[in-house]
C-alpha cells in the first residue's frame, strides 16, 4: 500500500516499462490469482450447497435435475444419518465441556507457574499437537484392545478429549501469558480472597481464550473421522456415516446438513469477529 502511494504515478501518455510491470503484478496478476484460488477452495462448498436443492431421484445425486426443497423438508428421513448427527452433536458437547475445564487448568498451570515437570508437559503437548491423527487413533485402539475395553460412545469421547486438550491448553496459556498480574494483585489488595479473585478477575480476562478453545474443540470433535474410525466400535457419528455412504452415493440430506453446519459455523465466526471489533472500537 504505502510503497505504491509514495511512488509517482506514471505519465498517462507514455507508460514507462518498469512501473507498469510492477503494477501489473501487484494490481492485476496476483489479486486475480488469489481470487481464483479462493474460488477453487470454495468450489466443493458451492457444489455441496447447490446440490442440496437438487431434485434428484434416488441416491445418485450427480446431475442437476431441477430445484426442490424436499431434502430440507425430509432432512431426518434417513434414520442412520440422523442418529449419526445426533451422536456427533452429543459427543461434541460432552467433549467440549471436559476439554475446556481440563485445558484451562493446564493452561493456567503452564502460563503462570514455574514447576518441576513443566518441560514434560510442554513436550507432551507439543507431541500431541504434531502427532498425525492416524497415530493417535491407532495407539488408542491398541490400548483399548489390550485392556479389552469395549469400543463405543465412551471411547470416542476419551479420544476426542485426548486430541483437542493440547489445543485448548495452548490457546488458554497464550491468554494467561498476556494477563496483567497487577489486576489480580489489586483485587487481593482490596480484600478479595483467591477464589473470588479467580472468579471475578482472572476468569473473565481469560474468557476470550477459553471461548476460542471451546469453539475449536467443538469443531474438531464434530468433524473428526480419522481418530473416530479407530475407536468407534459399532457407534456411528456423522463423518463415519458419510464416509460409509461415499461408496454407494451420498444422499442429498448430507448436503443439507453440511450446508446448515457450514452456515452455523460461519455465522458464529463472523459474529465473533464483529463483536471483537465493536469492543475494540
Amino acid at each position, binding site marked *: *500500500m504505502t510503497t505504491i502511494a509514495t511512488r509517482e504515478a506514471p505519465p498517462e501518455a507514455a507508460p514507462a516499462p518498469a512501473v507498469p510491470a510492477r503494477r501489473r503484478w501487484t494490481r492485476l496478476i*496476483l489479486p486475480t490469482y488469489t481470487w481464483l484460488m479462493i474460488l477453487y*477452495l470454495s468450489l466443493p462448498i458451492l457444489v455441496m450447497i447447490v446440490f442440496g436443492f437438487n431434485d434428484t431421484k434416488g441416491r445418485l445425486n450427480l446431475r442437476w435435475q431441477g430445484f426442490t426443497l424436499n431434502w430440507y423438508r425430509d432432512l431426518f428421513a434417513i434414520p442412520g444419518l440422523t442418529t449419526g448427527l445426533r451422536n456427533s452433536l452429543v459427543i461434541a458437547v460432552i467433549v467440549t465441556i471436559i476439554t475446556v475445564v481440563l485445558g484451562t487448568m493446564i493452561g*493456567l498451570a503452564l502460563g503462570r507457574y514455574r514447576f518441576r515437570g513443566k518441560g514434560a508437559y510442554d513436550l507432551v503437548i507439543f507431541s500431541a499437537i504434531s502427532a498425525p491423527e492416524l497415530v493417535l487413533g491407532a*495407539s*488408542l485402539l491398541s*490400548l483399548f484392545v489390550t485392556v479389552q475395553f469395549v469400543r463405543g460412545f465412551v471411547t470416542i469421547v476419551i479420544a476426542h478429549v485426548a486430541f483437542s486438550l493440547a489445543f485448548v491448553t495452548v490457546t488458554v496459556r497464550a491468554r494467561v501469558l498476556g494477563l496483567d498480574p497487577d489486576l489480580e494483585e489489586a483485587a487481593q489488595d482490596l480484600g478479595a480472597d483467591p477464589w473470588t479473585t479467580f472468579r471475578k478477575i482472572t476468569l473473565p480476562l481469560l474468557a476470550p481464550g477459553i471461548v476460542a478453545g471451546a469453539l475449536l474443540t467443538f469443531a474438531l470433535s464434530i468433524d473428526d473421522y480419522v481418530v473416530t474410525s479407530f475407536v468407534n466400535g459399532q457407534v456411528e457419528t456423522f463423518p463415519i456415516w*458419510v464416509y460409509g455412504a*461415499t461408496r454407494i452415493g451420498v444422499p442429498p440430506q448430507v448436503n443439507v446438513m453440511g450446508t446448515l453446519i*457450514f452456515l452455523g459455523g460461519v455465522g458464529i465466526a463472523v459474529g465473533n469477529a464483529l463483536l471483537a471489533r465493536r469492543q475494540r472500537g
Partner: protein
Amino acid sequence: MSTGGGRGRLTPYLIGLPGGLWLAIFFVVPILVMLSLSLQSGNSEEGFRFTWEWSNYADAWEFYHTQFVRSIVYALIVTGICLLLAYPMAYWIAFYGGARKSTYLFLILLPFFVSFVIRTASWKFILNDQGIVLGPLKDVGLLPEDFHLLATSTAVIGGLTYNYLPFMVLPLYVALERIDPSLVEAAHDLFASRASAFRRVVFPLSLPGVFAGVLITFVPVASDFVNSGILGGTQTTMIGNVIQTVYLTNNDYPLASAMSFMLMAALLVGIFVYARALGTEQVMEVSQA
C-alpha cells in the same frame, strides 16, 4: 505471586494434574502400548503375547513397502504443489492485502467450516465419470467415454492438495507479514531489481514460514487415508488405508502397530533431517512463533 507457602507451591501440580493424567493415560501410554503390541505374536482369537517379535516390522515392510513409498511420494508431490500454489497468495495478501487481510484469510479458511469427509465427497461428486465436469465434456465428444479421473493418482493428489492447501498458506502468510516493507524499499534503493530483491531479501526472510508450512502439510498428508479411500482405487492405496484395514478388518494388531510405528518413526526422522538441513536457528524461530 505464589506466596511461597506449601499450598501455593502445590497449586500448579493440582490444577495441572487432571489434564496431565488424561494426556498420560490416553496419549503417552497408548503409544507405549502400541510399541509393545508391535513386538507381540499371536492372533485375535487366542490373544497376543510379548515375544520380541521383530519379524512384524520385516513383514510390514515386505508386504506393504509399495504403499509406504507411495505415501511418501504423494506427500512430497502434494507438499511441493501446495507450496507453489500458496506462496503467491500469501505474498500478495501479506504485502498488498491492506485493511482486508483478515477477510482474505477468512475466505481461505472457509473450507474448514465444512466437514473434511464431505469436502472430499464433494470432489468425488465433481470428478465423477458422469458428473458435472466430465459428463458434459463426454457428451460433446471432447473426452472419450471411458475417460475417468476417480481411482487415479491424479484424483488422490488433487484431493490431498485441496484439503491441505490452507495449512500451507497460514504459516507462509505469518512469516511474510512480519517482514518490514522498508527492507524491500532499502533493497530497491540499493538498485536491486525486483527479482533480486525478492530472491535475496523477501524469500530468505520467509523461510521459517516455508519450513513450518512444509512440516504441517507433509506429516498429515503422508498419513492421510480419507482422500485415497474416497477418491482413490486399488492402485492408489496409501499406508494409512493399509493400517486401518489391518487393524479393523484383519485384526492383526501386532502387524498394524508395527506399521504405525514405522510411519511415525519415518516421519520423525524425516523432520529431524529436514530440520538439520535447514539450520537449527530457523527451527527455533518457528517453534517460538
